[in-house]
């Protein structure tokens, strides 16, 4: 059984007991424990189940690379799935549940999959579930959804009660990783005077050194670590942060750091996570190395663990995973585990060393302790169900014939170490295969390069392939100094600390144990524990032609789980390269992508949530709308009233009331959101002639003209009324959503094409409040306010005038988007609300009715006016909409003119704008397609048009619509069929003129 030792555990505080629950069961641990060490201390080895076969899984590792021990943390709004028990710091009251089991962790129905594994080979998703098609929907998918999935996402309706924030940091040298190499690199760079940030993902400093032993400058590693950390903390130019992971390295020295502030102490105030957005001139990654599992049959049975992890649990937490541990290895480092266990008084029945000649000094030390060492041997298979019970020892060189069964409850395995090269690789750093040490390490000659073309990432310590304490600390010193120098500082001529550790004999690569393992054994030798990928799966993929490592990854799902193959990557590559008979470097690695380990969505969002996620733009009259029943509609970053709902009134009724009141008497619209761009200068007229399809240079001062804007592709992009203010000044109105875009569009052409033209543009949208006063009584209201002549004679349709109304400075445009007598009045923004209040008050005698965007839309549709975004969708040219009158024939050029001459644009079969009226007066579904005879190659009905706008018109008491129809204008009176949302039901509609209301325009021109 796994248990807590009576003494020991350098990281725990036995005076502080911490109560927690796992699957509802109560447990006890100590301050300083991880959830994994506390569970092991209470004999809870089983921590999860695998993804595909639901096999029982115990903890394998002791850090971020853990693939198995994934748990749900917390409840309700604070629920979090897929937390690694090995990096979850224990606190009093922690509540965790296991994942991926049904109905319980101990008894899982899906585990039957393991007996079906013959039928669930590599690529099974692709092979098994394609045919017959109906089975996918009704059988396979429901079964997979029920039994698969890691963890459960929080309820989408709940809101995360925690807060998050972003930090920005700008440094000369960023050091990622606080092991001895990282500490020394930070020290060396800091001593040179560079501004240094040192971040470490764990709560503790020093990496593996305190567990692995040796000495630094004559001290125990732990003492040197404390001393160096204190020195760094005392330096004003150095910042150190623990519990902060380097998540990703990006272009030009950009790095994301992920700091966990309160996960270990939920009672603390402040943000839970912090995302660091760092710019560094130089980045040193000192991210260490990860031990590799060995591939032997039964290597996923709970109790089979990484040798280094077993050692960590004993030394750091005073916890032993079992009573009898067999160590299996191809290198010297794993002997340290046997020695640590022996020192703790535990049984080590054997060290099984796959190397024919065994190891060096560490092997001798083990033998001196009386531990049995078997060289040239391997494990043929592990026996056990939910717990290891014994191993079958065999010759490594053979095919797995058992030499001896050795009873044990833990197998501590080591297949060697792989440098953590993720951060080096994120931004393009290349790797080289180190034959001697059998791993990929960073190739310093092919580093990520920055804006100046020079390398901006370097790697230190075991992440750089410098294994062992002495080499690691030397490398840290050298790399730290070099980084400071690259960042423009002069490193001091200090000596690197001198470290001593045992010499290690060379490792011998072992990619399969035993070397000639039979098919049965290979089918039980796991590569990827979380996704259940075995040696046999990768071999099958190779046989089936998946030669590219990226394809094999996706076909087998190797390395695609939440751990992203931290343990399985190299073993999988080696298995593939053996199957393909190619060298490992020829097969290459898959791509390393950020983040290094998952980071929370909350951290990515930071402060941007709720009201500050996207600040809302408000017109000067916004508050009035808010207190008067506005039913809001988002338009760009604005909120506009869709309608103003009265008590007991439906939205539909409100819209109809607003339209009727406006058409009968008087309506008011807050049009402040419309874009207002001032274009000024000696060449402004010439410029606008290029921007608009119409002629704007000839517009007389005092007049307005409706204009169309196209892109150089010929497609409509915006429209609006242009007013000429004086000899060299025009005011261009744009759509609400288009103001910034169109201003940018104008500036782009001015700055990059016609930079010699003397034109100045200003986006004055927010400088004015603009209110449309609409309806037969509009003029009466303005005359009542007084101050300027708004008569038909002085201010006819499509003209504007400056003056005052009710004492407020006003610019009055006689323009109409409703077909009624209409004035749009711009006043300074800070007078907007006062002017609105005045209009409401003085207009009361004519039942002045504020109306929203829906009434505006219906009224414009009744008049057959197009709307950018309804009648246009980025593929529509003015000719499609019958707007030929707005295309100047006198102008040689305007944006889009040449494109509109292309053959597809002049095709007479382009769908054209018409009006549509259903035979029964009902409303056509927006976007519905008009059916044509026959079917296309995909068996779908052919089409001959579609609805672009569709409304109920209260004015006409029937449905009205606009649409684009094949040869539509030539087919007036013809009845065509539209298909409803169900894809079958037809609605018949007559093709009519798009102008449904007041076709002569008598009402607006009074």
């Amino acid at each position, binding site marked *: 059984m796994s248990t807590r030792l009576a003494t020991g555990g350098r990281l725990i505080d036995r005076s502080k007991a911490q109560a927690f629950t796992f699957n509802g069961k109560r447990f006890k641990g100590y301050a300083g424990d991880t959830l994994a060490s506390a569970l092991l201390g209470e004999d809870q080895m089983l921590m999860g189940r695998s993804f595909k076969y639901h096999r029982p899984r115990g903890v394998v590792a002791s850090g971020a690379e853990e693939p198995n021990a994934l748990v749900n943390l917390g409840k309700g709004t604070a629920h979090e799935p897929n937390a690694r028990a090995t990096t979850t710091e224990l606190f009093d009251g922690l509540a965790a549940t296991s994942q991926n089991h049904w109905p319980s962790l101990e008894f899982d129905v899906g585990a039957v999959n393991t007996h079906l594994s013959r039928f669930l080979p590599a690529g099974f998703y692709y092979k098994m579930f394609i045919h017959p098609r109906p089975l996918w929907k009704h059988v396979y998918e429901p079964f997979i959804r029920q039994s698969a999935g890691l963890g459960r996402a929080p309820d989408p309706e709940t809101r995360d009660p925690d807060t998050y924030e972003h930090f920005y940091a700008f440094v000369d040298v960023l050091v990622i990783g606080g092991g001895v190499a990282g500490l020394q690199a930070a020290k060396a760079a800091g001593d040179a005077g560079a501004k240094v940030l040192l971040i470490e993902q764990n709560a503790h400093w020093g990496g593996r050194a305190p567990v692995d032993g040796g000495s630094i400058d004559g001290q125990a590693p732990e003492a040197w670590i404390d001393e160096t950390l204190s020195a760094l903390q005392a330096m004003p130019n150095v910042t150190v942060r623990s519990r902060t992971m380097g998540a990703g390295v990006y272009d030009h020295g950009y790095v994301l750091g992920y700091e966990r502030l309160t996960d270990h102490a939920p009672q603390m105030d402040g943000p839970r996570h912090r995302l660091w957005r760092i710019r560094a001139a130089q980045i040193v990654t000192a991210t260490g190395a990860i031990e590799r599992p060995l591939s032997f049959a039964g290597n996923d049975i709970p109790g089979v663990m990484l040798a280094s992890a077993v050692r960590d649990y004993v030394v750091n937490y005073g916890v032993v995973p079992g009573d009898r541990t067999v160590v299996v290895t191809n290198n010297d480092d794993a002997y340290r585990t046997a020695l640590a266990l022996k020192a703790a008084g535990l049984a080590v029945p054997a060290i099984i060393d796959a190397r024919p000649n065994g190891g060096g000094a560490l092997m001798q030390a083990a033998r001196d302790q009386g531990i049995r060492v078997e060289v040239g041997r391997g494990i043929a298979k592990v026996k056990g169900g939910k717990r290891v019970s014994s191993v079958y020892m065999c010759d490594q060189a053979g095919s797995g014939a058992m030499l001896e069964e050795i009873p044990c409850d833990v197998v501590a395995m080591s297949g060697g170490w792989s440098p953590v090269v993720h951060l080096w690789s994120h931004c393009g750093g290349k790797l080289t295969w180190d034959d001697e040490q059998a791993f990929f390490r960073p190739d310093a000659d092919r580093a990520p390069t920055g804006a100046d073309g020079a390398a901006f990432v370097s790697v230190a310590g075991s992440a750089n392939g410098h294994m062992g304490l002495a080499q690691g600390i030397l490398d840290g010193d050298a790399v730290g100094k070099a980084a400071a120098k690259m960042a423009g500082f002069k490193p001091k001529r200090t000596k690197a600390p001198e470290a001593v550790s045992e010499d290690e004999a060379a490792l011998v690569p072992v990619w399969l144990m035993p070397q000639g393992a039979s098919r049965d054994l290979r089918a039980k030798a796991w590569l990827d524990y979380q996704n259940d990928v075995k040696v046999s799966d990768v071999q099958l993929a190779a046989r089936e032609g998946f030669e590219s490592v990226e394809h094999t990854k996706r076909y087998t799902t190797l390395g695609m789980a939440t751990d992203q193959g931290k343990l399985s990557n190299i073993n999988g590559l080696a298995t593939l390269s053996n199957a393909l008979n190619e060298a490992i470097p020829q097969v290459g690695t898959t791509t390393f992508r950020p983040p290094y380990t998952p980071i929370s969505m909350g951290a990515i969002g930071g402060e941007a949530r709720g009201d500050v996620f996207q600040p809302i733009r408000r017109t000067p009259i916004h508050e009035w709308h808010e207190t008067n029943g506005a039913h809001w509609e988002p338009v760009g970053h604005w909120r506009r009233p869709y309608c103003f709902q009265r008590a007991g009134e439906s939205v539909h009724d409100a819209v109809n009331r607003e339209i009727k009141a406006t058409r009968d008497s008087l309506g008011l619209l807050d049009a402040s959101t419309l874009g207002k761009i001032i274009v000024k200068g000696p060449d402004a007229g010439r410029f606008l002639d290029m921007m608009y399809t119409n002629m704007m240079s000839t517009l007389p001062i005092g007049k307005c003209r409706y204009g169309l804007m196209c892109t150089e592709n010929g497609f409509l992009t915006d429209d609006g009324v242009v007013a000429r203010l004086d000899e060299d000044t025009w005011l261009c109105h744009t759509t609400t959503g288009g103001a910034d875009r169109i201003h940018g569009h104008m500036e782009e052409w001015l700055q990059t094409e016609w930079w010699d033209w003397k034109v100045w543009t200003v986006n004055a949208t927010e400088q004015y409040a603009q209110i449309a006063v609409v309806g037969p009584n509009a003029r009466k209201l303005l005359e009542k306010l007084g101050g300027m002549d708004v008569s038909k004679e002085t201010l006819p349709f499509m003209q504007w005038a400056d003056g005052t109304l009710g004492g407020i400075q006003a610019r009055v445009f006689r323009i109409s988007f409703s077909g009624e007598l209409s004035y749009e009045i711009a006043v300074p923004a800070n007078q907007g609300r006062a002017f609105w209040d005045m209009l409401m008050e003085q207009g009361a005698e004519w039942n002045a009715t504020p109306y929203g965007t829906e009434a505006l839309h219906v009224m414009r549709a009744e008049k057959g006016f197009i709307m950018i975004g309804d009648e246009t969708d980025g593929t529509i040219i003015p000719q499609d909409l019958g707007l030929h009158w707005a295309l100047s024939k006198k102008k040689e050029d305007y944006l889009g003119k*040449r494109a509109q001459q292309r053959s597809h644009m002049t095709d007479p079969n382009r769908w054209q704008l018409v009006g549509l009226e259903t035979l029964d007066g009902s409303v056509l579904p927006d976007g519905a397609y008009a059916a044509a005879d026959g079917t296309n190659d995909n068996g779908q009905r052919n089409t001959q048009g579609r609805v672009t706008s569709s409304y109920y018109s209260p004015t006409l008491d029937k449905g009205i619509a606009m649409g684009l129809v094949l040869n539509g204008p030539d087919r007036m009176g013809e009845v065509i069929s539209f298909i409803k949302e169900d894809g079958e039901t037809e609605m018949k509609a007559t093709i009519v003129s798009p102008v449904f209301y007041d076709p002569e325009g008598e009402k607006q021109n009074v």
Partner: protein
Amino acid sequence: MLILHCPYCGIDAEETELHAGGEAHLTRFGPGSSDDDFEGYLFMRENPRGVHFERWRHANGCGKWFHAARCTNTLEVFGTYSAQTTEPPEEIRKILAKKRPGWTWRDLK
């Protein structure tokens, strides 16, 4: 996230401040041009692995468009310069000749 120097306001701007505007130094073809010329102007773009000239706008800054010469492969930036020119200026070409001898782009060398 790239950092480019805005030649107008003189600051190093991060990519979040910038708006990418595609290929630089396009020659506009309008009415009267041949179908081939117009197609080339509207649609055909360089897609080099190496030296490239691009338009960028300091959108969340001074609002000005400028040009950048950079390497799409290594992300090295050779320099930024005014948008108001039809070809890369001499000083940029000098840098390129030194850093990327034998570079070509469209018909430029």
